[in-house]
């Protein structure tokens, strides 16, 4: 029943023994976290240390397998892409495989997930040490690892969707980990439902794509490789009009809009910061929210056929990048500032896709995963040490939490694109692309880079520099280890040739773009230094001067309010209450009316029951007489 088949690419012959081993390793990457999750949730729910060991061990196993495959592939021993899969559903003409697709793209993403994930898992051991429900936390974390790997290694749309939904569930459970807090429970609900709304479009897109994917000789398919080969033919022959495909593309893009928190469905991500900080680092910064971008890269062969959809993607991404960065100006919560920054960077990645540069997007995704995870873990370390996340109540952390501050500084510099650090290179790629294709977007992106520098500078100057209020203690080594690891990655990720690995020849360095963006960054940092560290300009007067945009930003453009208004007034008060009214009064009312009719007839007939036997006899005789008369008449 489990028929594994490998569709090795024609290029490069692979040793059969190695191929078999690689197949096992590929399955191991995917399934080890699942097995660990099941083990933790079934037997380890009351055994905290077992849960921790299993979760970390499971993901570490995945990491080792990934590294194995990565080196085999990079040495050229293993021909990629290669695929192992089993048939999950086979029904009539429908065949849905479930498997592992190994190619350069999925390998780099798997490395991000397992590598950074392992660090964060380890960090969680320290962070969640005193939590009573740590077992559930680690179980869910393992399940999340499985789910995100299901997406990353997916061979087809349905498997991708399965993983897509499962990460949503894990995210829901982990955001709501401290369910006693009403805000955490609400944030979990919000994340799940917003994603559900997006996935509605996504699944329709998948269904539609599936339904147009058949050719004269072959059945429909959801399989990536098959679709990739088949769609251009179908479009060329006119069997699938480009307009249709564009609509399908838009529907599919709904998925990333939800999962990668693009405008206007970005509202769940800031709230998701209610979860434990490692979760924010792993799920809501490094991997899950990047899954949307990954999906767009994975299926870029589809999107590159539909330029109109790409344009929409571009503008959505650009809008998200800019608007979210502005939101970072007015936020006071340490983690939420990082969340807005994540939004903004995700906007960059989506923008890169829209510009036709999946490699740039993937590059930025990878570097962003490193430094944003680092920033979140740093924030987690701060919260762990001070139990405070309002930046105005922090300050002077450079003294009390030296190592945390140092790593945080590296992460911040990488984020703003300080020359030489990883963020600089990846952002530069996107800016180059933008300048080539779309000048207004390029300007906006450069402005956004400056804004990023501004709010990051604000965060740094307020929370870490300055006179100390916070008396934190430095975190344990188990938490600092991952911080150093990620800081190292944030520095070197720009030099290890990720674009080349993803198949793009690195073009000549664009000094003009780099200088412009560096200037914007420098300007942003300088302004924030003047405002918040030097206090050369009173921040308050600036706020007063910008009253209108300020309130606009503080209320997050009122988008949350619009949604809340919709839910409370339209959905609940009009649609749901209206349906309930209809149910109660029309449907149930109609049934009751029928019952009342029967009862009324009964009351009427009751009058004939006088209780006097003779009357009954009289009626009876009358009836008999009538019958006899009829009988006589008929004869």
């Amino acid at each position, binding site marked *: *029943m489990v028929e594994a088949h490998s569709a090795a690419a024609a290029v490069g012959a692979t040793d059969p023994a190695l191929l078999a081993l690689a197949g096992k390793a590929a399955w191991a990457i995917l399934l080890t976290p699942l097995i660990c999750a099941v083990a933790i949730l079934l037997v380890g729910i009351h055994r905290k240390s077992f849960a921790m060991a299993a979760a970390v061990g499971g993901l570490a196993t995945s990491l080792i397998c990934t590294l194995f495959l990565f080196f085999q592939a990079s040495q050229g021993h293993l021909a990629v892409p290669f695929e192992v899969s089993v*048939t*999950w*559903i*086979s*029904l*009539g*003409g*429908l065949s849905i495989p479930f498997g592992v697709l190994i190619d350069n793209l999925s390998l780099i993403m798997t490395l991000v997930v397992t590598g950074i994930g392992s660090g964060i898992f380890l960090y969680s051991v320290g962070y969640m040490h005193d939590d009573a429900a740590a077992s559930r936390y680690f179980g869910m974390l393992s399940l999340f690892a499985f789910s995100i790997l299901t997406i990353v290694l997916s061979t087809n749309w349905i498997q991708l*969707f*399965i*993983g897509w*939904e*499962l990460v949503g*569930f894990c995210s*829901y*459970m982990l955001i*709501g980990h401290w*369910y*006693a*807090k*009403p805000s*955490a*429970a*609400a944030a*979990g*609900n919000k994340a*799940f*439902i917003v994603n*559900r709304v997006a996935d*509605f479009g996504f*699944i*329709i897109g998948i*269904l539609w794509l*599936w*339904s*147009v994917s*058949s*050719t*004269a*000789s072959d*059945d*429909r398919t959801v399989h990536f490789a098959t679709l990739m080969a088949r769609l251009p033919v179908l479009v060329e022959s006119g*069997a*699938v*009009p480009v307009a*249709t495909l564009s609509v399908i593309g838009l529907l599919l893009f709904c998925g990333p809009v939800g999962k990668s928190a693009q405008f206007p469905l970005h509202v769940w991500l800031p709230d998701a910061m209610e979860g434990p900080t490692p979760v924010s680092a792993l799920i809501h910064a490094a991997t899950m929210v990047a899954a949307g971008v990954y999906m767009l890269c994975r299926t870029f062969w589809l999107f590159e056929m539909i330029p109109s959809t790409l344009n929409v993607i571009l503008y959505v991404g650009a809008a998200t990048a800019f608007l979210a960065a502005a939101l970072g100006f007015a936020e006071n919560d340490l983690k939420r500032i990082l969340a807005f920054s994540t939004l903004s960077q995700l906007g960059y990645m989506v923008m890169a896709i829209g510009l036709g540069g999946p490699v740039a997007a993937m590059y930025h995704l990878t570097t962003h995963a490193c430094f944003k995870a680092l920033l979140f873990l740093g924030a987690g370390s701060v919260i762990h040490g001070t139990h405070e996340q309002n930046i105005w109540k922090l300050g002077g952390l450079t003294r009390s939490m030296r190592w945390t501050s140092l790593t945080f500084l590296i992460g911040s510099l990488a984020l703003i694109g300080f020359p030489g650090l990883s963020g600089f290179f990846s952002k530069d790629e996107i800016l180059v692309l933008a300048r080539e294709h779309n000048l207004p977007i390029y300007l906006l992106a450069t402005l956004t880079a400056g804004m990023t520098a501004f709010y990051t500078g604000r965060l740094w100057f307020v929370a870490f520099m300055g006179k100390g209020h916070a008396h934190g203690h430095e975190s344990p080594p188990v938490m600092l280890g991952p911080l150093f690891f990620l800081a190292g990655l944030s520095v070197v990720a720009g030099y290890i040739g990720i674009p080349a690995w993803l198949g793009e020849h690195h073009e000549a360095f664009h000094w003009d773009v780099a200088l412009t963006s560096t200037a914007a960054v420098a300007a942003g940092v300088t302004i924030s230094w003047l405002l918040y560290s030097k206090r050369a300009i009173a921040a308050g007067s600036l706020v007063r001067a910008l009253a209108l945009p300020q309130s606009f930003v503080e209320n997050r453009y009122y988008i949350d309010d619009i949604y809340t208004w919709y839910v409370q007034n339209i959905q*609940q008060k009009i*649609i*749901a*209450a*209206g*349906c*309930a009214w*209809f*149910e109660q009064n029309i*449907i149930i009312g*109609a*049934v009751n009316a029928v*019952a009342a009719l029967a009862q009324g007839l009964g009351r009427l007939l009751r009058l004939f029951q006088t209780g006097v036997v003779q009357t009954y006899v009289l009626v009876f005789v009358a009836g008999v007489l009538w019958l006899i008369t009829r009988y006589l008449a008929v004869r």
Partner: protein
Amino acid sequence: MSINAWLLPLILFAPAVGALLLTLIPENRPDLVRRVAVLVTGISLAGALHAIFHYQTAAGGFQYEVLKPWLPQLGIQFHLGVDGIGVVLLLLHALCGFTGVLISYSIKQRVKEYYIFYLTLITGVFGVFMSLDLFCFYFFYEMAVIPMYPLIGIWGSDVKEEGRVKYSKQYATMKLTIYLTLGAVVALVGLLALYQWTGAQTFDIPTLQAMLADEPLSTAQQRWIFPLLFIGFGVIAPMWPFHSWSPMGHAAAPSAVSMLHAGVLMKLGSYAIIRIALPLLPQGAVYWLPWVASIVVMNILYGGFVALAQKDLKLIVGYSSSSHMGYVLLGIACLTPLSLTGAVMLMFGHGIMTALAFAIIGQLYDQTHTRWLPDLGGLAHQIPFIAGCGVIAAMASSGLPGFANFVSELLVFMGGWDKYPVQIVCGALGVVITSVYMLRVVRGTFFGPSKPEFEGHVHDAKTPFEKLPFIILVLALLITGSWPGPMLRLLESSTGPLVERILMNEPNTAPDSIQVHSPAKPGHASASNEHSEMN
């Protein structure tokens, strides 16, 4: 003599014999009563498991048949047998029945009478799923409906709103019984018309099917009978707008009865449509099903919206059931092998899921004495195990991958996409609505700060025995959901030929592009062309 010859009677009569045995057990020994009930339903469950594992998928068709004359003068036979659809539903019912008996341990008053009625109900439903004779079928159908009346009327609870009685249990049970009986009578008219017009002097379904394949009823006759059967059985399905008995029935019933009621009883309607209306009246089906496909969208969306407005846990789940049964009916209406397989799979998945949900709500209600959502909250502190099951039930209901519901909804959507894309889109929207109210329930019930009034006297399911029913149901959902292949193959062996036979009666339409047993066929190109024109 092999076990196959008496497997179905064993499954069917074990609860009946149990009910008879219970009449002999003195009232004052409730533990013995419960043990007997567990034993007989356990036998049925074992039998159903044996049946599903030993069903010959390759052979297909009706298996484990039993045929005895009953009233030969009228052509009535005692004819039992199951095909792939029946065997899956047998398992569903056996699971719900068995776990329901375990959940019923919380019943403390009139235990003996309760179990007698409960086992009678179980027998009736088993009978429906394995009857191959229309008379038998109808007999067991009524047998399944009638015990609901005392079960809800005596052991039920009133549905309250803000402390006032909204629907009394007497009202609910009366409405349920009368409504279902009325539906059954409408269906009976259709069945008698079928019996009369075929003139075959037989109620035997396979015989009728073979006869009607050779000389079908006239199109006009089929178009008359089909709505009678569809509405008659649709009432119990429950089809909008004949659904109003169901949410309040669920709400008023004791939890184990709600489990059976929502889990299995509602499936009788869709099962009857698949077993009787579709194969015997193919032209009627082809004529009416497009209408049905549009009406059931009302089921899905309207049911979901009404559920959004409810605050009683059982009413929410009740309306969600009527919403989800819309997918089943949609799958039937689409009439493709994929969608029909999905529909039956959803009958299974939804049955287990609702049973789980009602079991959980029953546990909550027994301990907190309220199902009113605003009164609840923070229960995950006191009852983590049940809360975990609650999250699982909510997620299964929202169609999370890994649960049977996801697979089946996906199949319904994929199977129906070519025929009714608009309805499918509305159906997919229903999934979003489901997650909204289900998460609201989970959040309002289990999450939030611990409430002092529940501290100390709300207890989790602690012993393995208390956990058993929940574990069984969760495992059933997970196993069939994460590895659906075997069950789908089982279903396909029956749904495929069924749809093929029906679509033979649709001469002008090209065969659907997904067709069983013929991967490449000439009709395919035209189907895809048609589709691209539509776009």
